[in-house]
């Protein structure tokens, strides 16, 4: 058990922990006491645990540095979850927290030895190693992969519930600090609906933990006003992740993802501490001013016992005063500035605190944690002075949190005077206020927030625009305001000075990379991998630009920035995926199929019965008796109006003008490249009403294709209506089909009254149906289209009526065998993205003498030149051998096997007891029935023979009984 009281202070005003309750969680096996409201990091800090992780490359010890989720130094594994930011994640009872990528333990990490060989591991070293011998590279790679990565994925991670919520708001305010709160209030007062997003449990921003400047005056309780205002909805614990076109934002709260369409967006995202680069600048115990104040004020934890405060602004002195008031002894304050530039600050310190003006830190010293710092004057080259202490507070400047402004395509430029990258040109509907826009005094932040709120309301037309005089006045107020950020980014030294904490990149590495030719900011990033780690440049991007500018002799502005990419903060795949929504289409008979032994198969978005246990038996039932299949998945389109025949003539290769009422015709549809797009039968139900079926997969696409031609210029007097789901459809097929159907209707079903390729409206068992006599299976068959609601009833009446005739349901597999026995093609299987109907053995359907139709020009060419390749039937020399679909047809030549075609369909035919199939062959070979060729099967060439026409009932007599 770790002693929880070691660094816990007396209750602090405004702290967010509940001291009355405690619970424990484990860190590296040891129990840690925490209060509700503690994060993992605050509880560990209270228990005096300084080292939480090890760095990626040199495995250097790392601890809490920013306490704001921006740096990578507190990444831990929490149960199944890798790469958790300990400083942002609330501690919970019985959490199992472990350090990542360390062995055997955090304290004694074996990989720390790499630090000794850093001389041999300069920037880009992996490009210069493991080159020879090439064969050894896989072995080296396996070693590299074992030491790579941080957290672990548990293959047995249990599922969890995630969801998403769309939001619509006039004004979205990102950041609930002083500027954000005043902006929200100002916009709401103009009548806008406002959504305010803040990543912390309570809004208030830096006012929650920072000691306000003396001239800030009493701090109005804006958070309470915002929460009370009817026009404002506050979303706490919600991190805005991205901003895309037309103010489309995303944000996360726990397992919920918000997708927000905002009329206007105000970014009041504040700023966070910018690191200073010096020797051992990432030693545990080096903490930013923000981190020290958060630990102190929010969690009542001493950031250290004896503090050395390194600063360049009056804020550093307020932090020293705050630490001192909480019982932390401040041993020294080191300020870059001359005393003349500081405010009246030095009086606040305890007597024995040492003050250094025009000084900075040269190095952090200590084994595994801070034991002191080397301080040196800026204007003289003298030996640094060591000062003992266990806490180094770095408060030399701020980086505006402008990631979302960059994403919103804001033009941001470097302000030399204030040493910060500030917004210069904001896109329409995007506004910025507060520390992200360079305001560093309480009053200015509030004023800029109010102004942004009124500008946003004006942009939405809810209020007049604020006068430009007010805008220029505020700009003057900001320019005169206090400067927080030092222009100095680094202090030369003799040990390692880390610019990028995620990837362990030092300033020397950058200098070497630039010398090697990687002298643009983007090339520098890709070669050194700087800013490519978990913090995505929050800690290192600004400093890298300064160093790159220095070594390339360019200005900071010329150096430019790397592209800021979403998401602003890492977000889990579970949150991004949300609730699992994968649409699935079920026919009206779905439940019946599953209850009657059907093996279901995926067919596009549909689920269909593939078989009912024995496909050959199902084939036999259709050939000898009668079978019933559910074909409800077919596309069904209704064409109405006098313009229908012309339209059909234009989109099909067939002719339709003279198709009589009550007749049905098989049609093939092509595009203007002459490629087969779809096929199906079309029935003329009346003078001006047609009923077209399409393949299951083509249903939606063909409707859109027809609408395209209708609405873009070919629209005669015709409507196309998608009625695919209005009717279910079954195919009653087999020699006894008529007998079965006759039991459900007293209509005359004999050939003369109801011939092949005709359509009739029949009442079956009291249900009005449309029935077509077509022959995909090659037997006498009736395709019954009945209202979907009555499908279950009609299906069961058909099965009842068919029981005496040995009726059996059959699935897609049996249907594929039956159609193959008739050599009928399946578009999309026997044809692909280059097949035309003439080559696919459907020349009979192509009526080239028609007026203009889709595909006419290329098909005339194919008809004239003759197809190069043709789709034909084949049988095998050894009848028992069934070549898998997709096998290649190969002609042995001197230069080795030459591919001349491939097998598109193949089955063993139970009816003919031999192998049958369809394949593509060169036209000359395909034109000779009986000609032989070879299919490559398991490395051997197996002989096959060309077969023309259907394998079964070539004359089609059985269709017309």
């Amino acid at each position, binding site marked *: 058990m770790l002693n929880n009281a070691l660094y816990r202070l007396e209750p602090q005003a405004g702290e967010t922990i509940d001291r009355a309750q405690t619970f424990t969680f484990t860190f590296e096996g040891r129990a840690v006491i925490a209060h509700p409201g503690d994060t993992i990091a605050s509880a560990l800090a209270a228990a005096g645990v300084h080292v939480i992780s090890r760095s990626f490359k040199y495995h250097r010890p790392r601890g809490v540095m920013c306490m704001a989720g921006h740096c990578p130094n507190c990444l831990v594994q929490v149960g199944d979850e890798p790469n958790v930011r300990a400083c942002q994640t609330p501690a919970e009872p019985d959490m199992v927290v472990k350090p990542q990528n360390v062995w055997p333990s955090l304290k004694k990490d074996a990989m720390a030895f790499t630090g000794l060989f850093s001389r041999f591991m300069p920037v880009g070293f992996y490009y210069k190693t493991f080159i020879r011998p090439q064969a050894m590279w896989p072995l080296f790679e396996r070693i590299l992969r074992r030491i790579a990565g941080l957290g672990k994925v548990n293959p047995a991670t249990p599922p969890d519930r995630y969801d998403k919520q769309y939001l619509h708001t006039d004004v979205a305010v990102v950041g609930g600090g002083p500027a954000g709160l005043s902006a929200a209030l100002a916009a709401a007062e103009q009548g806008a609906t406002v959504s305010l997003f803040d990543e912390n449990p309570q809004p208030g921003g830096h006012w929650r933990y920072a000691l306000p400047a003396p001239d800030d005056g009493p701090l109005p309780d804006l958070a309470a006003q915002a929460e009370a205002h009817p026009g404002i909805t506050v979303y706490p614990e919600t991190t805005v992740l991205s901003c895309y*076109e*037309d103010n489309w934002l995303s944000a996360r709260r726990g397992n919920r993802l918000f997708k927000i369409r905002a009329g206007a967006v105000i970014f009041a995202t504040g700023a966070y501490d910018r690191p200073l680069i010096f020797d051992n600048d990432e030693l545990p115990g080096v903490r930013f001013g923000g981190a020290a104040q958060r630990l102190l004020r929010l969690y009542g934890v001493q950031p250290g016992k004896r503090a050395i405060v390194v600063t360049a602004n009056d804020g550093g002195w307020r932090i020293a005063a705050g630490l001192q008031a909480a019982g932390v002894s401040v041993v020294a304050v080191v300020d870059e500035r001359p005393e003349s530039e500081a405010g009246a600050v030095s009086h606040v310190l305890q007597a024995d605190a040492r003050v250094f003006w025009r000084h900075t830190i040269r190095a952090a010293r200590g084994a595994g944690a801070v034991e002191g710092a080397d301080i040196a004057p800026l204007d003289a080259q003298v030996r640094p002075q060591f000062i003992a202490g266990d806490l180094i507070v770095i408060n030399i400047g701020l980086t505006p949190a402008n990631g979302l402004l960059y994403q919103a395509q804001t033009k941001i430029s470097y302000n030399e005077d204030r040493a910060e990258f500030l917004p210069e040109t904001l896109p329409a509907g995007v506004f910025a206020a507060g520390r992200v826009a360079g305001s560093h005094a309480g009053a200015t932040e509030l004023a800029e927030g109010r102004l942004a709120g009124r500008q946003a309301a004006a942009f939405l037309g809810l209020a007049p625009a604020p006068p430009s005089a007010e805008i220029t006045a505020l700009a003057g107020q900001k320019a005169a305001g206090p400067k927080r950020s030092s222009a100095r980014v680094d202090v030369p030294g003799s040990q390692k000075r880390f610019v990028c904490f995620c990837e362990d990149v030092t300033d020397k590495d950058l200098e070497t990379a630039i010398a090697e030719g990687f002298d643009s900011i983007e090339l520098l990033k890709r070669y050194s991998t700087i800013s490519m780690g978990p913090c995505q440049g929050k800690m290192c991007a600004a400093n890298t630009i300064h160093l790159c500018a220095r070594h390339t002799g360019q200005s900071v502005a010329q150096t430019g920035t790397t592209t800021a990419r979403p998401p602003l903060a890492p977000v889990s795949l579970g949150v991004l995926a949300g609730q699992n929504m994968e649409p699935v289409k079920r026919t009206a008979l779905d439940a019946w199929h599953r209850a009657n032994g059907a093996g279901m198969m995926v067919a596009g978005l549909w689920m269909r019965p593939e078989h009912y246990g024995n496909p050959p038996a199902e084939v036999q039932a259709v050939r000898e008796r009668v079978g019933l299949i559910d074909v409800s998945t077919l596309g069904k389109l209704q064409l109405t109006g006098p313009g229908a025949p012309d339209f059909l003539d234009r989109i099909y290769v067939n002719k339709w003008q003279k198709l009589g009422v009550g007749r049905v015709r098989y049609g093939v549809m092509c595009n*203007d490249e002459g490629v087969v797009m779809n096929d199906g039968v079309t029935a003329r139900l009346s003078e001006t009403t047609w009923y077209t079926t399409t393949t299951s997969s083509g249903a939606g696409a063909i409707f859109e294709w027809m609408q*395209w031609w209708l*609405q*873009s*210029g070919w629209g005669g007097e015709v409507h196309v209506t998608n009625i695919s789901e209005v009717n279910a459809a079954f195919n009653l097929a087999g020699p006894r089909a008529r007998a079965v159907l006759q039991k459900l209707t007293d209509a005359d079903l004999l050939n003369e009254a109801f011939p092949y390729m005709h359509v009739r409206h029949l009442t079956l068992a009291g249900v009005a149906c449309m029935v077509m006599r077509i022959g995909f299976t090659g037997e006498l068959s009736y395709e019954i289209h009945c209202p979907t609601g009555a499908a279950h009833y009609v299906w069961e009446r058909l099965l009842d009526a068919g029981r005496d005739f040995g009726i059996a349901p059959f699935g897609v597999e049996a249907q594929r065998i039956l159609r193959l026995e008739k050599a009928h093609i399946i578009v999309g299987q026997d044809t692909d993205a280059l097949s035309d109907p003439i080559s696919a053995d459907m020349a009979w359907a192509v009526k080239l003498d028609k007026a*203009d139709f889709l595909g006419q020009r290329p098909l*005339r060419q194919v008809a004239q030149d003759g197809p190069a390749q043709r789709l034909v039937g084949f049988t095998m020399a050894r009848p028992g051998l069934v070549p898998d679909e997709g096998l290649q047809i190969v002609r042995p030549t001197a230069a080795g096997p030459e591919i001349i075609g491939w097998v598109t369909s193949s089955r063993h035919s139970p009816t003919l007891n031999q192998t049958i199939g369809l394949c593509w062959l060169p036209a000359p070979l395909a034109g000779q029935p009986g000609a032989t060729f070879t299919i490559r099967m398991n490395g051997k060439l197996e002989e096959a023979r060309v077969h023309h026409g259907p394998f079964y009932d070539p004359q089609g007599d059985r269709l017309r009984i």
Partner: protein
Amino acid sequence: MILLNCPNCGPRNVQEFRFGGEHNPRPAAPLAVDNAEWTDYLFLKANKLGVQKEWWYHRAGCRLWFLAERHTQSNQVLKTYCWTARPNREGETCVE
């Protein structure tokens, strides 16, 4: 996610629509044009870096095919309108 102003339904997320490609009218008499013009229609593309006239289909909505003028660099949509000469929602005749 850009907003596309469907002439019938008003502004909607682009995910509701299907892109129909740059405006590329089919030759009035395909058999009469030479191979170069036919190849240009079938395969070649202006693929403009700038404001492009293109087709969109409101697949999840009212199933209207309509034209848009969008800058292909910023994805900013300048205007949308129907092809045929019939009144759209605002009553203004949108003539192609």
